[in-house]
């Protein structure tokens, strides 16, 4: 018997005319690992929420069709009643954590579903150990990195021993090694998993079945090898790497970092004696694991941080695109937000919005935009300033492969105008854009926690 059964599901959010999912039908058997792929806004998250009962109970809207979990119709029970059978991990861990310390946080769900008191703490500790963060049990959540916090959220879900585990882009904040480990742990415990991901290459390695969605419809539903063939023929950006760029002759130095050291507190230096040069026409990628100092270097180069020692020399204007596009919502209109960096010039703002495909959204409130549209808005807000140094911090987080290729193409096309520094975990994107890749590694001197800088030649 199928663990989950969806029959002709069509759903529209309140106030939306276009359905988020249309006529979706599928059955999920116990033990399957189902990968949902598709561009931003295609309905992946909505389908996951329907399986959790959050659609329609939490979100409202117009719902037709049927969703059954373990034989029960989700319309007949609340999402809270499904907890324990179904467990969900969403994209942003900050929006999931309730309590202030790790162990009580993981115990929260167990208490809610009525687990016998004496079993709560042992199950919580076991779940934390299973995802590799058992040592964090007594830590305050405010001290955890994004990757650690996401693992705690996974532990919270696994502690419930669910029959069905729903993961909505759970690795977006993790570096490649962390993401692979996360997916492997989520899958190896034998739970049925439905997983939404933008970085298809690593998720395909653990999936048994793939659904590709677009415009709310399921275009393909096949075992993973057949799905790879389908993707190669119909959506090659999802399975093939972009071509490596040609080498360019870099121009003048736009930013020079000489002997820079920086620490947020004296006991934990982040950067030590860093030298880095960024030249016009060149795209440099900073790569490395979470916590190695990449974002700090990016902010030093852009002038948002001042070094404790050393010098940062810049020629011209610098602009920095932050990791979180949700930071670009300070105005009531998209065009006003973009125009902020250029003294309110709406004409230029409109032109830049058009260049990123948001011409028809210029009058919308930034919070009314979808996640993919917010990412493009953030990019427009930075590009409109026509900087001499463009710094992008994880610009492909949560971005689908087609959008990544567009961004890579744009960066390459505009590279001669400026020096570009990209901080990214995304190896595929790095390959597509970089003239030079600079790799950060954890220092061997663990007491001082130094990040040693090694330079890798772009292959």
């Amino acid at each position: 018997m199928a663990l989950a059964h969806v029959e002709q599901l069509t759903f529209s959010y309140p106030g939306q005319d276009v359905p988020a999912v249309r006529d979706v039908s599928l059955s999920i058997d116990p033990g399957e690992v189902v990968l949902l792929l598709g561009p931003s806004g295609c309905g992946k998250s909505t389908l996951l929420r329907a399986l959790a009962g959050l659609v329609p109970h939490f979100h409202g809207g117009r719902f037709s069709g049927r969703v059954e979990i373990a034989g029960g119709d989700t319309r007949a029970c609340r999402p809270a009643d499904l907890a324990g059978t179904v467990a969900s991990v969403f994209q942003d861990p900050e929006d999931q954590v309730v309590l202030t310390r790790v162990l009580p946080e993981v115990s929260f769900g167990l208490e809610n579903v009525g687990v016998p008191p004496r079993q709560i703490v042992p199950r919580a500790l076991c779940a934390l150990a299973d995802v590799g963060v058992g040592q964090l049990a007594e830590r305050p959540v405010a001290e955890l990195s994004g990757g650690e916090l996401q693992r705690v959220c996974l532990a919270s879900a696994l502690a419930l021993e669910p029959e069905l585990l729903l993961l909505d882009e759970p690795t977006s904040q993790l570096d490649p090694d962390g993401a692979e480990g996360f997916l492997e742990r989520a899958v190896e415990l034998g739970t049925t998993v439905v997983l939404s991901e933008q970085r298809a290459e690593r998720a395909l390695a653990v999936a048994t079945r793939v659904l590709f969605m677009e415009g709310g419809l399921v275009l393909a539903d096949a075992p993973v090898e057949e799905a790879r063939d389908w993707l190669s023929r119909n959506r090659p950006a999802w399975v093939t790497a972009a071509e490596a760029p040609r080498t360019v002759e870099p121009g003048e130095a736009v930013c020079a970092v000489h002997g820079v050291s920086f620490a947020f507190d004296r006991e934990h230096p982040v950067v030590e004696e860093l030298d880095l040069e960024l030249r016009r026409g060149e795209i440099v990628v900073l790569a490395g694991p979470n916590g190695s100092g990449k974002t700090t270097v990016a902010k030093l180069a852009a002038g948002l941080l001042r070094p404790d020692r050393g010098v940062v020399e810049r020629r011209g204007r610098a602009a920095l695109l932050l990791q979180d596009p949700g930071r670009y919502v300070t105005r009531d209109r998209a065009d006003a937000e973009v125009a902020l960096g250029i003294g309110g010039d709406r004409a230029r703002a409109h032109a830049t919005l058009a260049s990123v495909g948001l011409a028809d959204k210029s009058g919308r409130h930034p919070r009314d935009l979808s996640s993919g549209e917010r990412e493009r808005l953030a990019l427009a807000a930075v590009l409109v300033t026509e900087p001499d140094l463009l710094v992008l911090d994880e610009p492909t987080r949560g971005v689908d492969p087609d959008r990544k290729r567009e961004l890579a193409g744009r960066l390459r096309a505009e590279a001669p105008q400026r020096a570009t520094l990209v901080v990214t975990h995304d190896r595929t994107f790095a390959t597509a854009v970089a003239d030079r890749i600079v790799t950060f590694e954890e220092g061997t001197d663990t007491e001082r926690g130094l990040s040693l800088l090694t330079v890798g030649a772009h292959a």
Partner: protein
Amino acid sequence: MRSGPALALLASAVTAALLARHTVSVAAIALVLLAVCLRAPRARRWPYLVGTGVSAVALFVITPFVETIGSHPLWTGPIVPVIGQLDVTREELVSAAFNASRLAAVGLAFAAYALLVDHDKLLSAAGIARRSVLAVALATRLVPTLERDAAGLVESLRGRGVEVEGVRRRAALVSPLLAGSLERGLNLAEAMEARGYGRGGRTRVPRPGWATADRIALVTAVALVVLGALWL
């Protein structure tokens, strides 16, 4: 120490400060609470201490000009329409110090609650009004998140060459910050529902037994209230 006795101790300090009649007593309570707050990490404690300090100093400065008590003027100023003769008497200064110390004691007790009390244990101990306790615990947990959101908004502007200086420019960030908090609140509510919150039959992690420190704290809390009412 269990969170319940710790909270009782802080509440009793506030109660004693409000019942006490001598400035020195209230000031002593405030100083003890300040010493407690100084145990918190520096990066987290400074907004609470600065807020409490500024409020108390402001009250101390303003009180003599709005009160009219005493007959020993230390300073006589001009006559201001509506307000009248501005003067500062010794009695008004004593009253100002008393009220400012009270305000400081209340502010520091709240700071100690926010900075040092384990809200997870407090929630676990709450037998009644659990939802209210959870709401307060959530609000406290999300304060660092709100700080990061505010810093992120400022960074997004500085990253485009827009400096955020002055009261007006900073005030313009309040609205998007609040909107972001609402959005985050909705997402959190969704996650809580998905984790079974609100379902009947809730259980609780077994609580540890009462330690000696917990008993001493409770007795001290009761004694402090009595002292405040009778002698301080």
